[in-house]
């Protein structure tokens, strides 16, 4: 087996960084720190996308990278942080499962994701193919985070992290999606966050708390 090129090594490094951040998001209990982590995840995503764009010489990936930088590193974290400040919801305290259990579950998910990605990576021809397993793992971990959190804001961060994973999966498997699709998703995410922001205010208005277990009372009996 020939030694991997510098680009591939760098890419693997970025992928590992993303996974690491996913895990730290899973264990992080403070909302502001979580948003900062999300911004860092976006930054690494930007770096890896730029790298792929440079090495493969694909122009549209540069646009994607720029979009990532603007949207996920600056705009969304900014909106979320402002929201958290306005809602005074910096302290997300408890999770539904305790952190060690969640981490163990996360490890299981990563193994599952790698097992799943193996046959697909074998077929891929891109230089990024080894990272597909990581991308899947990021998606599943983000999902797990959504399940185990109680507060509405952290759920949104989990949702956005999942989108990051999908984006990473797209670049790693097929050098990204068509520009139109990517633009559409970016806009959806932006609008989604704005709408959810409005919802947060409504939820707090109604229940004087952002804790989601209050929503259980909405069920019709």
């Amino acid at each position, binding site marked *: 087996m020939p030694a991997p090129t510098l680009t591939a090594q760098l890419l693997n490094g970025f992928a590992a960084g993303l996974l690491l951040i996913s895990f730290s998001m899973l264990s992080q209990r403070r909302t502001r720190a979580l948003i900062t982590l999300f911004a860092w995840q976006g930054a690494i995503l930007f770096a890896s996308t730029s790298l792929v764009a440079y090495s493969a010489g694909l122009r549209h990936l540069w646009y994607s990278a720029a979009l990532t930088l603007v949207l996920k590193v600056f705009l969304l974290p900014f909106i979320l942080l402002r929201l958290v400040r306005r809602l005074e919801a910096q302290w997300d305290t408890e999770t*539904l499962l305790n952190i060690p259990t969640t981490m163990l579950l996360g490890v299981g998910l990563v193994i*599952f994701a790698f*097992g*799943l990605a193996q*046959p697909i990576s074998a077929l891929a021809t891109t230089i990024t193919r080894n990272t597909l397993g990581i991308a899947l793992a990021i998606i*599943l971990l983000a*999902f*797990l985070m*959504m*399940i*185990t*959190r*109680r507060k509405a804001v952290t*759920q949104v961060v989990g949702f956005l992290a999942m989108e990051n994973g999908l984006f990473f999966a797209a670049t790693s498997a097929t050098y990204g999606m068509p520009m139109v699709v990517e633009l559409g998703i970016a806009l959806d995410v932006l609008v989604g966050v704005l709408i959810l922001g409005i919802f947060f205010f409504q939820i707090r208005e109604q229940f004087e708390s952002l804790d*989601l*277990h209050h*929503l*259980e*009372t*909405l*069920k019709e009996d």
Partner: protein
Amino acid sequence: MIIGWNSGPAPSLVLLLGLIAGWLGLGLAGLLRPHSVGFVARVIFPVGALVGLAVGLVGLGALRPGSLPQTLVLPLGLPDLPFHLRLDALAGFFVLLLGAAGMGISIFAAGYFRAGQGTAPGLLCLQYHVFLASMALVLLADDAYLFMVAWETMALSSYFLVTTQHRIPEIRRAGFLYLLIAHVGAIGILLSFGVLQGGSWRFTFDAMRGQTLGPAWASVAFLLALGGFGAKAGLVPMHVWLPEAHPAAPSPVSALMSGVMLKTAVYGFLRVSFDLLHAPQWWWGGVALAVGLGTGLFGAVFAAVQTDMKRLLAYSSIENVGLIFTAVGLGLLFQSFGLHLFAALALSAALIHALNHALFKSLLFLATGSVLHATGERNLGKLGGLIRRMPWVATVALVGTLAIAGLPPLNGFVSEWLLLQAFLSTPEIPQPFVNMLVPLGAAALALTVALAGYVMVKFYGVIFLGQPREPALAEAHPAGWLERIGLTWLALGCVVLGAFPRLLLDAAAPITASLVGATVRRGRFAWAIAPIAPERASYSGLLFLAGILGVVGFTFLAVRRIYHGRVRRTAPWDCGYPWQTPRMQDTAEGFGQPIRHIFGSAFRLERELPSPWDTAPRYRIHIEDRLWRLLYVPLGRAVQRLADAVAVVQGGRLAVYLLYAFLTLIGLLVFVL
């Protein structure tokens, strides 16, 4: 809009589509001034009635001898799934029915609707005309897609019409029951079409005609169609919505639903069982026959014990639909044994009875509407003696009553006579078992028809004859002139078609020629028929009419002129009993009592009998359908239990919902792996 045709020009069909669009346009025009009764009722409804007349004439045109089916493909609907339309003799016959009955009902409605609580007149006008247009589209549809779209539009628009007085909880409940059963039926029809396409995945009726299904699949399709269309038509045990929904709706709507909408179900059933499925098996006919007879008898017995005049008519509709399905079943039976002439006879009876029922049942529902407006009463126990206050309504209602009771010389007799003739032809059936059983059906038919006569005597006698049972009835005002025109139009239809019965056979002939490949014998004269052979049985309506008019006229003259001509008006002899009150007349309950006694096991009775010492005695009787407790209540409970079991999934916790999505994702990924 581009209209593409695939087999030559289709002028009648295009004209008909224009008329349907006209109905829709009129409906929308009602929204211009939604609260103005004057505009909606006096302008839009009469125009709608004229459109109805034109629709009827186009339908009549499609029945001309030698007129070919016209088809049209409209590039509407979903991509790659255009609407196919077809106007053939069968569709034309029912279009004629829709137009003729719709004309009378719309004219009546113009005089009927007033400002009041409930739906605004403009909205009502939109719903009413959408209802008419969707029924027309059901008849013209030539693919399952357009058929279902029109069918559901019909169900929904009629649902909103039924719940016009939506502030009353009982009416909301009746509407919901109707909607529920309509949807169950629609699912049956949809599945039936799914079977009929036979793996070709093409849903035009043309493609379905081309399929040859195995006997098992064909039977499945037939039974699904019987269930689906039966739910709309009101066959037992799916009849429960009828006696609830018909009284809840305003009278013109009841007339339209009972007179026309039930017939679209008959049309659909005929389309599937004779046209799309071409080789009937003999037991199909047996099933339809048995269900039809059971429904007929059930309807007649229940109608006899009702005390609400619209409920009584609703049960009578169930009975008549039963008779129509009996005739269709008999036709299927004959057709499966290759007896084409007799199949044509039975099918003619079914079609003619459908048309007749549309005329006289609409007429009677409208008459109850007039009575309701004049008195504010639907309960038979509080009516009576209205023939003096409302002579016009009483006269046309008498025509309708005699027609529905199946008495010559009116049109009801023609179809029932034809049906009986068809029954009398059953000895020709080669299967000995069927041969022995079907005459029992003839007996049941005779019983049903006789009971229907009994019901109608009760209906007419209690409402119009005798003394007014309530003092308020003295203020009853006669119907307006628009209402009278509508009623008279329908009554004239009953008389003319009864006097010239061959017109009916002429209308049915092209249909039987295309569906069963034979036509019954039609004589030289429009006023006489002898469908099989003149020496076997013949009937001449005009002769009867002339005879009856002659006898009545002569008697009138004899009494007034020849006898002595002095007429005194005086109180009838009261047997020397001085304290007679109108409440001593026979009541609806009293009149129905023998039937209630004889068929006691069919009902579930709840009675409150006053004791002899009551100072204010009240007699209350509540008659319930046993099927409701035996079938519907357990079914409802089972559904509730199932729903409760499923509702455990909906715990209300967001994390759990997310977990469902997560597990599904993992499961799917594992599946892919």
